[in-house]
């Protein structure tokens, strides 16, 4: 059965795209068939896989159901990882969704015909809470939230958890978080990670992604970490994150 994992956070710049690309690649490396949908109009995930951020017909046709999503897929450099690329028109995704029937189910409708081909579908979502993100909530089995270990980040995570519990219709996605850009030299990071680890009910995963130069270098290399720095700290951390996440999907 296909599992849909949405990399999501209300905040930007927290490591969603890096996680989406590296986790998708790691899953493919381990033998799974994986689709990554780059929903962010900035197209960073597409860029990291060297695929042009362009979708024929744009986002509106896609969510209206007048484009065949399987004809828009691009194979990545990994033979088991395909990408549904970003498109600049995704910036107007809310407008496009608003014009469809049952907009909450629109992304689910796009994924449904592709699902049989893949073991996992990763959604790299743009930041913010919007109609598009609510459609993501309806499509995803799991919301995977990268969390920088700072008080504001933690507060945003709590907001998200409350919002999903209160506003999202059943079946709701499970919310799991992991620490991203964690810096063990900072006392604040260490303290927040320790506190959350002690108090959370398993919603925050143990594997943490360190703040590492390798992650920034991805944009120069245009490759996932496992492809150019497989033994680096960050790459190993994504591996550990996938090992921890996968059995919970």
């Amino acid at each position, binding site marked *: 059965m296909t599992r849909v994992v949405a990399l999501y956070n209300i905040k930007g710049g927290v490591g969603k795209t890096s996680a989406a690309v590296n986790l998708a690649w790691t899953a493919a490396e381990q033998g*799974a*068939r994986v689709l990554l949908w780059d929903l962010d109009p900035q197209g960073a995930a597409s860029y990291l896989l060297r695929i042009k951020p362009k979708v024929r017909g744009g986002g509106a046709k896609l969510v209206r159901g007048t484009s065949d999503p399987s004809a828009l897929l691009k194979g990545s450099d990994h033979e*088991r990882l395909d990408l549904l690329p970003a498109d600049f028109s995704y910036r107007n995704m809310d407008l496009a969704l608003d014009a469809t029937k049952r907009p909450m189910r629109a992304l689910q409708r796009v994924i449904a015909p592709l699902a049989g081909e893949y073991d996992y579908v990763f959604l790299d979502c743009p930041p913010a809470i919007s109609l598009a993100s609510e459609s993501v909530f309806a499509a995803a089995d799991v919301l995977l939230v990268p969390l920088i270990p700072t008080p504001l980040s933690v507060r945003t995570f709590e907001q998200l958890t409350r919002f999903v519990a209160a506003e999202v219709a059943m079946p709701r996605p499970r919310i799991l978080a992991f620490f991203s850009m964690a810096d063990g030299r900072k006392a604040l990071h260490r303290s927040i990670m320790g506190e959350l680890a002690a108090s959370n009910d398993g919603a925050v995963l143990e594997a943490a992604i360190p703040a590492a130069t390798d992650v920034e270098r991805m944009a120069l290399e*245009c490759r996932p970490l496992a492809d150019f720095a497989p033994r680096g700290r960050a790459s190993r951390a994504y591996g550990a994150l996938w090992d921890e996440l996968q059995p919970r999907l």
Partner: protein
Amino acid sequence: MDARGIQLLLSDGLSAAGAADRLSALVPVVTQRAHSVDRTFWDTFDGRLHKAGLALAAVGGRLVLMDAASHAEQAGAELPRGTRRLLLDDLPAGALRERLAPLVEMRALTPIARVRSRLLAINVLDELGKTVVRLRAEEPAALPGGDATLALRPRLHVVGVRGYDADFDRVLALLTVDVGLRQAPRPVLDDAVDALGAAVGGTSSKLRIALTPQERADSAAVTILRRLLGVIEANLPGTLADVDSEFLHDLRVAVRRSRALQRELRGVFAPEPLRVFRDGFRELQVLTGPTRDLDVQLLEFGELAAGLGEGTAADVAPLRLLLEQRLVAERQKMVRGLRSERTAALLDNWRDFLDGLVEAPQDDRPDAARPVAVAAERIGKVYRRMVKMGRAIEDDSPHEALHDLRKKGKELRYLLEFFASLYPDEVIKPMVSTLKGLQDVLGRFQDREVQADLLRALGDDIAAMEGGAAALMAMGVLVERLTEQQEQARAEFAASFERFAAKPQRRIVADVFG
């Protein structure tokens, strides 16, 4: 994940490295380090994956299902350890099992060839440095066992990347037109299976016989019966080793078909040897019957028990255990019989008898030299008889009336199979199709009765087992369900018979078979 793919032969002294060099002069490529890989390919005995254009390879502890032509991976899973036989239930839940399930069904996957290949990966890049076409130069060798290797034709796999079709076409044109490579006539796996002396595409139990109308009836009988004997012999080792339940099924079908032909064309055989062989084949049928009945019961057990709901489904565990114990005991008896001198002599003598039949004197073989087409006309007689029998069946007719019609239907089915090649497809196909529909209903009607009877007969034994009381109650529900299903089949009889006996169908039979 679907990707286009084609295999080109590397020939005329062009090595994998040479091909990479030639190509790098034409398009930007990145060549990876060559490496060796050992793959063991698996398929069912009847080559179900081959027929679907797929290949299943065990590589480094993983099972990978791929398109046979492009080698593009479609699904994968961990290879269960230490086994030379895989049933669906042996595979971990997931995409691979789901993909294989409708193809493989109850058949076991077994290794069919081991291939060692030296592989060189060459990726064609676009202006962003992204891979747009994958090339895999392969120098394969089949491994027959021991240290021996059988070199196979080297080839270049050209595998498209999804969404980059234009690049695939461009690179393929370069390779075929500019470099002059030609398409490989068949996949590496087929070359390997052939080199290892096995049947490419597996061993089919289908009849597939071409007769001509003027052919002597005894010669046609020999052609059909030799093929059936081949099927029996091909399925015997798998039956003895209990590789999967289909070996015994196919063996029994071939025995039953042989018996049907012995009966239908009895005038082409001398009476006395025929009597001996008919007795021998009947014994084979009887010998293998109980094991097959229990196989069927266990194959359908999961579905039947699942319908009981979670709590009650667990209660029938003692029944399953008892069926399995019975199966073990019956199998032992059957295997002893099949391994006996008597069975070996029967099959040997039958082959010798068939070899000499056409040359044998015709004094006591009145139909030997008649054209086979005359014998085939019996199709019309059996069809009309079935129409008459079916019309006489009312809602309150005894079960036997439906059972007898089913038996007649089997005879018609065999005749159609034996003589199909004498008639156009448009005559045979609709007849087979409506007959199959009718036989499915009649088969279900009878099978449910047999299954219910078997369950009833096990009652005392189950009651004596641990957890027997709960099992007995669950069995009561099962018997009730089987009876309902039997009634359902009976309700469907009229409609399926109407299709079988429809006027246009009757007219075709009258026109063609007289």
